[in-house]
């Protein structure tokens, strides 16, 4: 099923149901998804897996997604990877961009909105 140009998404969210549903969503749309519910694994995974994009929740148990984003953007091996942050807090988007994120989508999200944003970031 996976074609040569299939894009890989690294998805991190501490809620298993959200991870499950979102992975389903991306896979239905033909992406390959690597996921974790442990926020602090993400920088390491990004280095080893070299995904095409990271989709990162902000409020994860005990961890601030914005710090993770800063680490990705600070590391020479991962700083080129676009990061899209997601959160249930509507007004946190600004601070996500300040932390170096390339985009922000509010939860709960419209599937099209999320996919459009991912495609846009993959294009750039």
């Amino acid at each position, binding site marked *: 099923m996976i074609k040569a140009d299939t894009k890989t998404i690294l998805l991190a969210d501490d*809620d298993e149901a*959200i991870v499950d*549903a979102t992975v389903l*969503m991306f896979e239905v749309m033909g992406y390959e998804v690597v996921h974790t519910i442990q926020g602090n694994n993400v920088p390491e995974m990004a280095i080893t897996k070299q995904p095409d994009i990271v989709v990162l929740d902000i409020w994860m148990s005990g961890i601030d997604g914005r710090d993770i984003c800063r680490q990705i953007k600070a590391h020479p091996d991962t700083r080129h990877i676009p990061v899209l942050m997601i959160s*249930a807090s509507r007004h946190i*988007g*600004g601070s996500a961009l300040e932390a170096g994120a390339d985009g922000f989508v509010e*939860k*709960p999200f419209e599937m099209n909105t999320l996919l459009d944003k991912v495609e846009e970031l993959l294009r750039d």
Partner: protein
Amino acid sequence: MSTQITDHTHFQPLVEASPMPTAIYSGADMIISVANEAMLNLWGKKASVIGKTLREALPELDGQPFHDLLAQVYTTGEPYVAKEGRADLVVDGRLQSFYFTFTYKPLKNAEGQTEAIINTAADVTELVLSRARIRETEERMSFALQSAGMGTWDLNLETNEVIWDDRCKELYGFSKEDRVPYQQVLKYMHTADVERVNRAVAYALTPASGGVYDIKFRTLGADDGKIRWLHCKGNAYFNADGQPYRFAGTALDVTSEAGARRRELQLLSLVERNADHMSIADMEGNLIYMNAAARTILGVDEHEDVTHYTAQDFYQPQEFKRVQQGVIPQIDSEKGWQGVIHLMNRKTHDVIPCQVNYILIKDPQTGEVIGRGATARDLRPELKAKAELQRLATLIDVSEDFCNYCDINGNTLYLNESGRELIGLTEEQYYGKQLYEYHSDASNRLIADELIPQLLKTGRWSGPLELVHQVTGEIIPIHKQMFMVREEITNEPVAIAGIARDLRPELNARKALDVKNAELSALVTEMAFMADSVPVIVWTSTPDGHIDYVNERWNQLSAISIDNSLGTNWTDVIHPDDRQNAWDAWQHSITTGVPFQTEYRCLEKSGNYRWYLVQALPLRDSEGRILKWYGTNTDIQEQKELARQKDNFLGVASHELKTPVTSIKAYAQVMETLFTRSGDTRNAAIVAKMDKQLNRLTSLIGDLLDVTKINTGRLEFHYSHYDFNQMLEEVVESVQLTTEKHAIQKQFKFHRQMQGDRERISQVITNLLTNAIKYSPDANRIVIYTEDHGHEVQLCVQDFGIGISQDKKDRVFEQFYRVSGSKEHTFPGLGLGLYISSEIVKRMGGKIWVNSVEGKGSTFCFAIPVEAPVA
């Protein structure tokens, strides 16, 4: 020295050769032994007289002193010298007087006895006569000058000495013996004239002036101190080089002349400045003179020539005719005419009633009438004063106060109506009534012992007295003011005037007030007890906001005592973060009178702060004036904590609620995609409906979260620069997607960049648009428009729906408020949207409002600054 001579003829050749008349008389008989030609000529005799005795030769000398003088010289041997002695000689046949300077010298023999006398004589007749003539001339001149009161003076310009005649010295007040240098002259000149005289002298001493000097000035007598007016005339004389060498002239005392002129000027000045109108006209009525007062009254300018005017210019036609025909002919040549005439100001045409006095003016020489003079007094002030007096009298007549007027013995001369009524006297009864008759015994003693003496001393008295009603005998307490009236010229006391106020109503009112106060005082005690027994803090404040009572509860709770919290000290225990708001709210209430309600933290005895709800209401009098504020402080610490817990809970809950919604929504959308891909449109539609309901749920959760943040002060803003219209287009597009019925019409007039929180503003606009759709179910359009107001952008959303009634308009922005009424159930929602919007707009430094007509629709607007407020 004596000479020894025997024969005197020896001298003859010597004597004859002398040009000076010389003769020798020999012996005691005085025989003319020698007489030269000159002497013979002098005598007017021939040589034949030689050899004769002198008596024979000149018989006319008898009775003259010469024989005796010669005899004396002959006897004593002492020579005699006479200067300008007079001798009457017969010359040319008539006796003439001559003057000689002559000597009789004795010629003595060897024994020293006088043998002869040698007589030399010089004829000085011409000299003596001319000198006499000069003296006569001088005397005549001096007499003339004296009779003219004129003195002469001569200033020697080399020595600067003034040569005066006696008269002149007299004019300056010097004595005849004084010698006066010019500088001293100036010293006795009137100081006001010195400068002028110096100038005149200096001018006279320049050739250009021709040397003419003519001036009048005053002197201050050096010896007598008198002021004299001198008229000095003189001339300076110049040498060939144009240098003045002599300056002389006359001085005339013109004191009386100057006095007359001055009197004339004083008189004219008196007339000119007289307060009354004064004018002179000729018999035809042509004006000749008008003084300043007349010019003012009649409207003639200060320097205008009055001779252009005739009397007619200053009357109204009818009055002119009356004066012309009825007054002028009646002016008596001795007594004149007095009466009232109405003059007219020629500028304003005001008619001025005047008391006029006409007199006829006669030529002092011929007695012929040459004009008439008028003095006129403007009667308006008098008439006004009279009218005012009349009004004053009326005022006293109708005054509600007791007004009386007694002669110095206390006999009542006047008592106004209120006075008569107060003491029960009729108009016929009061006159002559003794003031002691209508005052109480106590008052009468006071009047006699204290009041009258003080009136005599200071002219006035005021204080309480008692009147006695003349019918009922009732004692009436009054407050009286009395004045001593004195005769204007002699200052003798002539009458006593008084005004009195009936004190009964005041006393009654005071009594009633005392009763009321006692009742109130009891009530206050009761209230204070009640206030102390309630669990809340109760306080009162003066209308200007000063706390004047706090109940006992305060002492049990507060960190400071009641006494230390009065006035404005209560703010000391307010939490610093709440103090300014609390103070502002209180000031707002006491200035506007709106009920006071605020919440703040207050320092407890324990050192902790507790939350209080503080409320106060104003107590007003019947006219709406605030008498007092009544307030309470209610402990709301527990409610506050509960609210905080609730907010925390809601915050956590709404975030937690979103998490499952996110996954459900994601599953639903995946399902919809999969159904659509498999061509199962029916199931795809069902899942789409489910998704829409999830959106509603999301929106409600979002609102709850925002309200929580607002209430806990955690609403965050992220300012950035953004394109306002681009944001609008996005919002309108997304809202347009939710409705098929309404067309959203855009009218954008603001086309600039904004600085602000793009997300929050989107949220507000979204809210206004969705509300507009929600509350206009029967309409088919919504209008959104913007205006550029410079530093602000204004945005309005207009709908054509159910509208809002006037009384509820301002409440729509309150938390949980929902448009109520019969249709309430029709419109779902938590009632949080407008509250959130209004909070966001306010936080951005803007304002939000609504205009609405019930049944026609509403227009919601907000205006926010284009630039972010400086934090």
